[in-house]
């Protein structure tokens, strides 16, 4: 799961992607302006999306690791058993 989180983070750099498209890049038509704005947003969101999933996977991995450790400690008798 740690490897999955790494893969989802991509190259691991904190590269910030900024859209090179301006409002007029695809012409003055309504469709051109809509695409320019939406493309700028969607590509950035795709990158954010992968990183958000990486964070969730890392957090889930941490939870499972913590639970596993607690089970091990319980089995080793480090926690008092209920009467």
């Amino acid at each position, binding site marked *: 799961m740690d490897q999955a989180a790494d893969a989802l983070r991509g190259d691991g750099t904190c590269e910030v992607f900024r859209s090179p498209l301006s409002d007029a*890049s695809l012409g003055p038509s309504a469709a051109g302006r809509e*695409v320019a704005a939406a493309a700028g947003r969607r590509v950035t969101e795709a990158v954010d999306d992968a990183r958000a*999933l990486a964070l969730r996977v890392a957090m889930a991995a941490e939870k499972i690791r913590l639970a596993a450790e607690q089970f091990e400690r319980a089995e080793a008798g480090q926690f008092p058993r209920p009467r």
Partner: protein
Amino acid sequence: MSTPQTSGSPGGGRRSDGLSVLRLMAGLQGLPDPLVAADELLAIDADTLAGWFAVARRAAVWLWRGSDVLADAIPVLAAAWSSPAPQAWITALREAGLESRTVVVGQADAADLACSTLTQVKASVEEELGTAEAAVAALHPADVGAALPGGSPSPSPELQHILTELTARLDELRARAMEALQSLALSLRADPRDPIESLPTVASLPNGDPGAGAGPGPRFPASGGLAPTDPSAVVSGPMTSRPTPADPGPMPIDVGNLERLRLDLQSEDDTTREMAQGVLASLTQAEQAGGVAQLLVYESADSWSQGRAAISVGDISTADNVATLVPGITSAPAQMADGLNDAAALRAEASRQSPGESTAVVAWYGYDIPLGFKGGVSTNPLAKVDSTLDALDDDNAGEGGVVLARDIDRFRQWAPVGARFTALGFSMGSTTVSSAAARGARLDDAVLMGSPGAGQGVSTADGYPHLPADHTYVIAFDQDPVTQTRTDLAATATSTLLAGPRISGADGEPFGVDPALADFGAQVVDATTNVPEVRMSLSLPGPIEVLADPVESAVVNQWLALSHHSETNYLSGRSKEAAAAVVIGHYADVPIKPGR
């Protein structure tokens, strides 16, 4: 392909002799300049679009690789844990990743397809221009000269044929380019974040017990809830994320305003308390309409002022789109019911058109609204006179524009980075929005509805520092008398009568230029009133009929015409659909017509 000489003008503009002849000829015949259409197509930057989507493909690879590695973890978890919860949890993460990747890849594919078409179109435009250039060059010079100013009124059939062919081919190519862009625009309306954002948070896995409660569940509501009958409840206002016993979560963004509201509800000043009670009722109404209500602006009323308030229907802190709705005269913060109904209707329409996106609509009662005492709290007589005179010009809208620009800056700090911001103003509110834009408000779009004018100092839509003219939309019903010049004339006459001559702006109109005029340069929305048109003709008995009848009818019809001038009318039917399409950035869905 022959290559015409070019002057290197922006957008690959061509100014060779042969093409200049065609351009002149088109102008003399009143036809559209074919080179303008060609330049627009050649200016489309398909390469940059394609390069930008290479970034999306990288993200798609990350999502695929990560999901692939997660697949390896699933059988290991199944073997190691007797509980199915960890395995189910990781499976859900993996599926969300793959689903998201499908959206990203689909959009990248659509972008590649569009870029390919656009590149072909550009090449074809070059070719058509070259062909036309060569054909003109092959004509006899006398035939070409006859097409120039001062030449023959009927150019040679060969030259006419070249112009007709070029225009027709460019029209075809433009249609292909538009089809490609519209198809891509549709593909880009899917949000790649949806699959992952709809997952439950990891907090639903209890600490140290992966065997319990890991299944997906509903997202936690952002609102902490309000108890309208209990003033003390307002301090617990809307939260921006899930609170837990160990982690109370981030502070509600409106905690300060809610605290001021709570204090005002206990004020001994009747005006202050009445306004606070009105705002509390509005918060309840907004919460019922939007699930989350946030009090983004709150300033107390007193005997001189109606105060200020702005309530968001929907959670601004998670919104993809934030619309700010500015009302017209006679509105007041103490009575926001109509404005909140309109805000909720606009939000519902935005959600209908773009179900995957969240939209918050802020009812902004944040400027000194003329005649506010009509619907608001009772102020002192002098304040009422002042507020009445304020309705006769755009002074309050100008000052309100400064405040609106500042408030939008604050809203941007609360909203997610990248949220789209639109300001919509009705009547005097539209003049306020225009003034805010003129003062540099950071808006993606503005919608001016039922506008009496764009305000002093704004002569064209090019006058907004951060808002391109083609992102300024105007909805003006032809039946609405307030959008006509006679409103300015009436206001000027009344103002002069009551307060003496006023120094008007350069255009001499108290509310500024009509933004629906073609010369203003905004996008005029093609929408019609939603109120049935009724006209009356009065018949008076006796000899006065001849003189009085036309006057009486005109007055009655003018009164009837005012029924078209309401915010709710502008936010109904096709005009509401168009306004919502602007709010969510679906520009291709906004019907446009020529200005007046």
